[in-house]
């Protein structure tokens, strides 16, 4: 199947989502268009948490998960 790149709307959603739930702190630069970054590491972290395929990129399954209704507390800063 053809793979669609994330839309600007998806990228904005991802930035907000990762900041809110996965402690993304990086502020500058277009998302996911540079080399390995804190953002791609945070995408990977999110994908691991939710049991998704860990790609570090904003694939369709990851965006779909980000759009699901959820609790407002972060998923990181946790300890077992």
């Amino acid at each position, binding site marked *: 199947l053809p793979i669609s790149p994330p839309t600007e709307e998806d990228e904005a959603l991802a930035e907000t989502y990762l900041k809110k739930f996965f402690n993304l702190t990086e502020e500058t630069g277009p998302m996911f268009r540079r080399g390995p970054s804190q953002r791609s590491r945070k995408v990977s972290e999110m994908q691991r948490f939710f049991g998704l395929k860990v790609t570090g990129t904003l694939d369709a399954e990851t965006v779909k998960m980000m759009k699901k*209704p*959820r*609790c407002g507390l972060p998923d990181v800063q946790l*300890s*077992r």
Partner: protein
Amino acid sequence: FTTFDNLNKWPTNQLTYRIENYTPDMSVAEVDNSIERALQVWAKVSPLRFTRIYRGTADIMISFGNRNHGDFYPFDGPDGTLAHAFSPGADIGGDAHFDDDEYFTFSSTRGYNLFLVAAHEFGHSLGLSHSNDPGALMFPVYSYTEPSTFSLPRDDVTGIQYIYGPNPDV
């Protein structure tokens, strides 16, 4: 399951709660019932006991609000974030806030079931953070389960008993 850092927990098993306001989506009786049942989910498997108060400050203050609602964590309108709650502690600690831009329901599959959302939030109020077990109540994503047959998943039981121990009455 996961807990908050430093195993943040209540120093007592006798906790109070207060419903500060109501959503227009449901009757007062339905909200009361949903909240009570959501707390009992945790009481059934732990030594925690909950007493409702009608004035003053309770350990767990429960309110409905939207957008900026008095803390530093504004809600985001319909869908997205449904609610949030604070880990055990003084003042805002333990409090649970529900986004009133959502449509909360008592028994309908339409909208978001308040009992299910509240049960999850009260897990935070008691010291549990998010679980990465997709079957757990403390999984961060909303998932509808028939409320009348709800049973607290094993991961959540293990988590709350890790913090407070088992229900001594069972």
